[in-house]
């Protein structure tokens, strides 16, 4: 008869109390795991969104990240094609890569002269075929339903803009943007009528310069020499971007178009070479290898590597926030479990005082008494944690199959509300081990008290 066997029987002795304690532990485990699974899902969703757009790593000209947005033309990667080739052919990196593609980010002013409106925008020049490939990345198996990439099969002058840009530039109608509030222009101040010739000229000026139903914008940006350059872009689609700030500024175009805008007849550059990896977990290894390449093969140009977390600080903030909430919740639940199990064990010690005296009289050492009650705490912890994990898996399954949807931060369309518990081994084991540990710790004080009882006092206890 081993200590654990005796401990188990003692737990079964007061079934109702043991079940109540276990129930509290199960509730705790379910809460931790479901919230953990939910935050894990959000984290993976955010990460996937960022990786789909900007890859895991970007090779940029040194200091582009800090100063380049003010003058992207001056901070370009001149030999970007060679950089991309070296990276793609590197025997260490190649197995980790899904896509290596150049990109251009630029700032400018987009205008719809027909409507007489303009606004500042952030432009992005991409290689369409590579972007299509990047959009297939789904390392975490998230339920995604991405629409086709809007620039697919379009001419070089095609562009896609954010819904916000379309709204401000009054392109909702030709682009069939829904949820575009009706727009009433501020009225002209009342006064004397303009002369007839002026009115006629004005009518000519406001005449649409484009074919009916076509949306065009003019994108103004500073070229490599600092002179203004304008590109006329045909907007093929307006797409809602995840964040309003981005939605109000986004203009996507072909890389070649963006290069012409920035570099004109000069040798085209890219502001970054984007690397998308097979798995996010490979970032550290890939960065280490890239550091070697930048110091050897690619040392001709001052380059540096940024990962998606550095490029998207929101990701780190969101992950940190969820980690803080998770930690707070885990501590709170841990405290509840601590006191629940501690209370149960204290009651067990009190009820079995005479038994403790008997065991000690028969020759069981103090350490044996301690082991006995700690064993009960451990069993409560292990059983509670196991039952909690099982219950959490069931609850997660129910939630995942309930057909609920929600709009996570940074997403455009509602996504299925899912909690990722199954497969999250570290989360499950961490929670289970944590609960078991808390239960053992809770049993420590009552066990110590039991072990330190005077035998004669214990035997006298009724």
């Amino acid at each position: 008869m081993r200590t654990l066997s005796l401990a188990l029987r003692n737990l079964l002795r007061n079934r109702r109390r043991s079940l109540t304690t276990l129930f509290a532990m199960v509730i705790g485990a379910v809460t931790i795991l479901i919230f953990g699974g939910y935050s894990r899902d959000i984290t993976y969703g955010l990460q996937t969104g960022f990786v789909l757009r900007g890859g895991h790593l970007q090779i940029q000209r040194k200091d582009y990240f800090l100063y380049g947005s003010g003058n992207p033309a001056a901070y370009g990667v001149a030999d970007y094609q060679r950089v991309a080739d070296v990276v793609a052919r590197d025997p260490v990196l190649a197995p980790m890569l899904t896509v290596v593609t150049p990109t251009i980010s630029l700032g400018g002013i987009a205008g719809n002269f027909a409507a007489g409106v303009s606004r500042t925008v952030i432009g992005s020049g991409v290689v369409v075929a590579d972007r299509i490939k990047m959009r297939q990345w789904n390392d975490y198996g998230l339920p995604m339903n991405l629409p086709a990439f809007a620039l697919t099969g379009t001419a070089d002058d095609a562009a896609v803009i954010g819904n916000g840009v379309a709204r401000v530039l009054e392109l909702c109608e030709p682009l069939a943007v829904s949820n575009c509030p009706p727009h009433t222009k501020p009225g002209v101040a009342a006064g004397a009528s303009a002369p007839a010739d002026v009115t006629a000229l004005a009518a000519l000026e406001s005449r649409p310069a484009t074919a009916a139903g076509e949306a065009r914008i003019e994108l103004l940006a500073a070229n490599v020499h600092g002179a203004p350059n304008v590109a006329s872009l045909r907007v093929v689609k307006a797409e809602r971007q995840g964040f309003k700030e981005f939605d109000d500024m986004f203009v996507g175009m072909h890389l070649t178009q963006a290069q012409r805008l920035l570099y004109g007849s000069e040798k085209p550059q890219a502001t970054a070479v984007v690397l998308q990896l097979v798995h996010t977990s490979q970032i550290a290894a890939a960065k280490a290898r890239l550091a070697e390449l930048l110091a050897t093969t690619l040392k001709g140009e001052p380059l540096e590597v940024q990962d998606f977390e550095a490029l998207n600080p929101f990701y780190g903030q969101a992950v940190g926030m969820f980690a803080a909430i998770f930690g707070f919740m885990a501590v709170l639940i841990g405290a509840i479990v601590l006191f629940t199990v501690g209370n149960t064990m204290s009651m067990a010690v009190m009820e079995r005082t005479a038994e403790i005296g008997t065991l000690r009289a028969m020759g069981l050492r103090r350490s044996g008494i301690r082991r006995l009650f700690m064993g009960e705490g451990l069993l409560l912890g292990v059983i509670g944690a196991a039952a909690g994990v099982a219950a959490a898996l069931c609850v997660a399954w129910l939630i995942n199959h309930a057909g609920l949807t929600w709009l996570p931060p940074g997403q455009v369309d509602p996504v299925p509300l899912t909690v990722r518990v199954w497969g999250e081994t570290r989360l499950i084991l961490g929670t289970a081990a944590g609960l078991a540990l808390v239960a053992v710790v809770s049993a420590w004080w009552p066990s110590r008290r039991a072990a330190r009882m005077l035998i004669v006092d214990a035997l006298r206890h009724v």
Partner: protein
Amino acid sequence: MNVVNLNQVGKTYHLDAVDVPALIGIDLEIRPNCFTVISGPSGSGKTTLLNLIGCIDQPNCGEVIVAGEEVQKLSDDALSDFRARHIGFIFQNFNLLPVLTVEENVEYPLLLSRMPAAERKRRVEALLDAVGLADKARNIPGQLSGGQRQRVAIARALAPSPKLVLADEPTANLDSHTGAAIISLMREMQREHHVSFVFSSHDPKVLAEADDAVMIRDGRIEQIERREARAGGRHEQGAGAAEGGRGAPAQAGDLTPEAAP
């Protein structure tokens, strides 16, 4: 050699800043293979004396020697091991472990003494057979009568082959018929296992069975009566009594009073 020697043992309890002497200058020797009964009125110090002999309490002064070992010098762990090897306990309320079966209760002290499993099994079976509970081996204490529980307690106390078995009012919670049967069983076991039994009891039936009777009052031994061992009806002289075996020759069935220390 005596199983127990108490030399000038004293025990005082501190209750609410008041010192209450429970035992004062106790000198006592417990002979081997004897049935010794400690008797006296309530509050006289019987249980305290039994606790000191059983090494579950410490005296404030004096010397307690059990099985040749000066037990006050032992650490708590060593004392636990010592009890596991040399002392068996029978309690008034039986104090069986309710979650264990009858055979597991008897086996428990053998686990503490780390006896091999096969030997344990044999020993448990033999003891349960001896106390007439072989058919109840798989029952739990809650399914037994009071008398049966006390039989289990006797088997448990004898399991590790102790030199000394202590019983605190073992018949107090039993009806007179069952109590008599239990006393008879203990007497039988004592003879069979060659072990010293020490009781605290008011029960005249227990006193009648005693080889030695220790009368205690107000924490002092008032009288020690030794009687010749009854085995085989032979007349034996009480030996090793308090104060160096000053016991007078005794007649079978009579108790021979000795001067209290």
